[in-house]
């Protein structure tokens, strides 16, 4: 291109500017204008050069991009989404089998008819729990003594019942525990079904046993329809929902840590040790009362117990003297100010792992100037347990020393032991509070719309059917929280495209999803315990992934930083390269046009 004969500088403005006034050169051809035409073909060397530089830059760009890319383990975003949609679209069904047995009603009631009416009552009562639903089947047996009428006739679940093994005479005795044991031996087959026996004849009574069954004795004259309504309510409200009120504590709260552990921290608070100092024999209580309950709850949570005695721990708010009750009264509206977080050094536990749930239970021994201290309910009555709970935190009981007088025998510093009888009462209240924290009732009566049911208390704190309610609920809660955690993680990861994601996180997410799937399949096949276990594993893995230290750290490498490092080189260089390519291209076009003009002219001339 260096030998272009007549072309001027590439600056076209100059070209045009000089176009009109440039003196015509003496040339052999009179109509050859060097400004407008040329005789040689424009060369391609420089054009090729600049474009090759430009293209090599463009080609190199992906390599550069790859080299500055940070490591992100691929997360299964789609599977996370599908898990949460699966949970949202109500795919978590727990299969439940109910069995209603009618004894002493004669051949009159048709089991199919009964079954239909119970089912219709159940559907009336079932509130649409948005989170977890149940998939129930019902079988009805009418025992005629010698033979049974069954509906449906070929149900696999009612087969365990032997006809005639229960008669009305079994229920005459007043000992509920004995009846419960008798029923347990009758129904205690291998199948996991919830049974209710309706017996005609005898004094009216409705009891829920410690195992998976309940019984109801109705009077001779009573209608079977009344019994049907009551049975349906029992099945829905007690066996499915655990007898809890809808509004009391929201169902999805489970006081279980992400690692499936609960630490029960018991604290004895001596408000003012100058008045009296009380100690307790905690070891004994731990062995007799708490150990069976902990053992019973083992499938739901891994519970550990610790205790301490604290001194100089006044409560945070004042009580007032009530002359009529001759005691100090603390009203409910002040309860939020009872716990004195400045002075009550209840402490988190070092022994517990990072994500265990700690439930604090405190026995408050008031000082002499506020003794006896009573808690007043909003309706003006005095609380019988003299305690209260705070959901997800724990419970407090006020224990007034006997006599409450600053006797001379109370020499300061002398340690008194809380009487073992009082301590047992206290711990029964604590177990009740613990049940309440799980959402159960602390009283032994379920008051339904169609009548009351006595709930037979278990010496282990939780009955079998309650534990099953808990493990169902825990599976549900864990799966939902796992899905939420993974969802937040995927949103976080997607919103920060330059965040490093370690392989370990990817692995944890994968395992968590696998465990969640296992829990789902176990739940739908009715294996509650293993589904609870794998659901809690899924949840803890999800939390592990979310709280992985590498996410927390500031090893996040921002785009600004990248830009600041590379722009000093690439910005000026790319300007050069792009502009050069543009200019060469334009010039080539111009020159080519000139050449074409000349060629056309030459053609016409020749």
């Amino acid at each position, binding site marked *: 291109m260096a030998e272009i004969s007549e072309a001027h500088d590439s600056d076209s403005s100059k070209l045009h*500017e000089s176009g009109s006034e440039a003196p015509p050169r003496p040339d052999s051809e009179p109509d050859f204008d060097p400004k407008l035409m040329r005789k040689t073909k424009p060369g391609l060397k420089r054009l090729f050069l600049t474009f090759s530089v430009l293209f090599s830059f463009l080609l190199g760009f992906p390599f550069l991009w790859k080299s500055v890319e940070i490591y992100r383990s691929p997360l299964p975003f789609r599977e996370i989404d599908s898990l949460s949609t699966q949970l949202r679209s109500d795919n978590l069904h727990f299969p439940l089998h109910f069995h209603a047995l009618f004894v002493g009603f004669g051949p009159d009631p048709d089991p199919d008819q009964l079954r239909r009416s119970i089912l219709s009552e159940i559907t009336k009562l079932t509130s649409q729990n948005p989170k977890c639903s149940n998939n129930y089947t019902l079988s009805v047996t009418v025992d005629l003594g010698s033979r049974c009428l069954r509906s449906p006739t070929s149900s696999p679940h009612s087969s365990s019942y032997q006809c005639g093994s229960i008669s009305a005479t079994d229920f005459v005795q007043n000992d509920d525990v004995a009846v419960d044991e008798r029923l347990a031996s009758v129904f205690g087959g291998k199948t996991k079904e919830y049974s209710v026996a309706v017996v005609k004849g005898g004094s009216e009574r409705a009891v829920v046993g410690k195992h998976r069954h309940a019984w109801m004795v109705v009077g001779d004259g009573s209608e079977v329809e009344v019994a049907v309504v009551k049975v349906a309510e029992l099945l829905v409200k007690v066996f499915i929902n655990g007898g809890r009120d809808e509004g009391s504590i929201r169902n999805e709260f489970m006081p279980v840590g992400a690692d499936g552990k609960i630490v029960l921290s018991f604290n004895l608070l001596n408000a003012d040790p*100058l008045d009296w100092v009380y100690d307790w024999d905690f070891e004994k209580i731990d062995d007799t009362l708490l150990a069976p309950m902990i053992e019973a709850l083992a499938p739901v949570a891994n519970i550990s117990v610790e205790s301490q005695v604290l*001194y100089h721990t006044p409560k945070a708010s004042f009580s007032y003297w009530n002359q009529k009750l001759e005691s100090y009264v603390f009203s409910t509206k002040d309860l939020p100010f009872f716990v004195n977080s400045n002075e009550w050094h209840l402490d988190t*536990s070092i022994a517990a792992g990072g994500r265990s749930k700690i439930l604090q239970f405190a026995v408050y021994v008031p000082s002499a100037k506020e003794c006896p201290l009573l808690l007043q309910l909003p309706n003006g009555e005095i609380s019988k347990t003299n305690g209260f709970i705070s959901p997800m935190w724990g419970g407090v009981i006020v224990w007034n020393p006997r006599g409450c007088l600053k006797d001379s025998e109370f020499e300061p510093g002398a340690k008194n032991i809380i009487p073992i009888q009082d301590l047992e009462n206290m711990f029964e209240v604590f177990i009740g509070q613990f049940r309440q924290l799980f959402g159960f009732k602390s009283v032994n009566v379920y008051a339904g719309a169609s009548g009351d049911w006595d709930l037979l208390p278990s010496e282990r704190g939780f009955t079998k059917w309650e534990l099953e309610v808990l493990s169902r609920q825990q599976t549900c809660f864990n799966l939902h929280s796992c899905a939420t955690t993974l969802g937040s993680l995927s949103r976080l990861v997607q919103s920060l495209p330059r965040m490093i994601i370690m392989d370990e996180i990817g692995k944890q997410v994968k395992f968590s999803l696998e465990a969640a799937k296992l829990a789902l399949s176990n739940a739908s096949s009715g294996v509650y315990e293993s589904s609870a276990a794998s659901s809690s594993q899924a949840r803890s893995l999800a939390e592990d992934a979310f709280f992985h230290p590498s996410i927390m750290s500031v090893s996040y490498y921002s785009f600004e930083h990248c830009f600041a490092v590379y722009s000093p*080189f690439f910005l000026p260089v790319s300007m050069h390269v792009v502009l050069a390519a543009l200019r060469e291209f334009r010039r080539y076009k111009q020159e080519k046009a000139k050449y074409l003009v000349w060629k056309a002219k030459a053609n016409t001339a020749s």
Partner: protein
Amino acid sequence: MALLRRPLLVLLLVVTHQFLQLWIVFGSVNEEGQKQEEFFEELLLKPLPDRKLLTHFHFQSSAPPSSNGRHHHLFPKAISQLVQKFRVKEMELSFTQGRWNYESWGGFDSIPSSNAKPPGVELWAVFDVPQHLIDALWKNLTHTLSGLFCASINFLESSTAYSAPEWSFPPASGNLRYGTLPREAVCTENLTPWLKLLPCRDKAGISMLLDRPSIYRGFYHSQRLHLTSTGSGSEGLDPGIILEQTLTVVLLPNSQRASLARASEKHIQPSWSLRSIFGKEVSGKCVLAENSNVYLLLDRGLVAELKQLHKEDEESAEKVLASENYWTNPIFELSAKPDRIFIEESSLLSKNSSILYKFEVEKYSESEPFDLGLTWKIPVVWLCQQAPLHASRFLMGSGNERGAIAISLKSTQSCEGFTGANFDDERCELRVDVFQVVPWYVKVYFHSLQVFVDQQPKAVSDIIEKIHVSPSKDKVSPGVMELVLKLPCSVSSAALTIEFDKGFLHIDEYPPDANQGFDIPSAIVSFPNFHASMVFLENDSLNKSPLLSKFQEKSPVMSYTEVLLVPLTTPDFSMPYNVITITCTVFALYFGSLLNALRRRVAEEERFLKDKAAKKSGRLPLLLSKLSAKLRGRHSEPPHSTPGSSSLVNSKLVFKVILVAGLAVCWQYYFS
């Protein structure tokens, strides 16, 4: 040496006797039934020669070994869980502000040898696990402690911050880890969690005196937590734990009589009372404490001086000492009557013995609070007992490249008696252990170790009996030097020097205030042949006091040297970016010019220049001529420029503007 050994034996006998008594007492408790958790609170006050006052709070909680360690009645739950979780056999954590003045506050008592600590945080722990598990436990322990005490102890986690001394650190054992943070600031947020471990916190008892402003106004403040777990962790029993919490504060009492400023009273020690020091009084003991005592200690030097003064008054010193009215005498007066007076058993090194006044707080109540005051009547001057050698450490050399650390040991005056006693013994030797940790970026050359005794260079092998060195590894572990020196007793001064190069840190490793310099932790100089112990006669074993039994323990005399501040070369922290920018600019210039050179058309340019020369007028001269014409007020000739050119210029400009705007839009789009 023989002379030295005999009294030592006597002392040993006395001590074992005492222990035997204690053991019997424990046994009797055991027979009665289950051993209980116990708590003791004590306060020791000691006037110091330089008009200051030492206050030493000593709290001890103990938990017996039990099968059920989860339940506690007095003992802090957090500590027992810590011991169980991390299998800690012994641990000490101290938070210190200020430096213990060994010269004027003494270095030989059991108070300085176990309570004088290096500034900042010091933590050591002995673990009851196999070697390979220790480091992991140590790391977890540091994190737990930093959470428990609101301090940045977790910085001891990194392996460059801690070391494993083999034998020179007194509770030497292979399972020991030792680390210090010299720059940690200590304040109330560390004291509050420490107080939380006491059953009465600062609500009752002696700890009520802990008035934060007074404590932190002091010259020296050291808060210490020492725990020992005793016994059988392996037999299914949880170990028994003894938790000892001490707070040592050195304060200057503001004398009420200072305003009088009489010349004669200038030299009188300031009088003080608990109320004037702390602004508070003790209203009764903590009801949970087994006993609650306040002690006033007059040390040996002071008692000797007092005896001297008494002699001038022509009174028999012995008589006065025996007298119960010693607490009010012509020299000083106490505001409260002591419940007991202990006189130290004639000690090994001096004929004088210290006196201890005991006050039982139990007898006082809210209506009649306990306030101890000491009023001096005549000036008294005395000296505290010093450690045999006074250790100090300093840096030598200048510049940012290399330097040297020197540890100098000077014989103290008080030790003359000791050396004199052994003067006839030719083989008399003084054993000194030195333990020094240096961070890895201070690269010590161990071959350059030099020893000077009485300013004369000596061969290293003559003086150093034993040496253990673990060289530092870059960014992995600090260098540790442990030495045993054998110095002649008659030594008046000795010095050790060792040279080092200053290393370079990676830019990420500099702390935020890198220009302040880097700390070399204190060296520990201990004298294993000297033991600080005070044995008091009439120590009634029924009312046992952990503080007094602590005094009776033979604790080796040790002292900490100063913390050194080494300035390292610190880079300009914006340098990497500057380097990037300038390199990139140079590259871009090179690249651009290369590209331009490649597409240059030389012939065409020459021709163009010729054209231009023919035209003779550039744009700029044209503009200039126009401007000058305007200035002269004359109408110049219209320029030759054509509209076509200006439109082309405009289109080019517009293109450039659009390019920049497009880039800006892309930029914005990317960020939204």
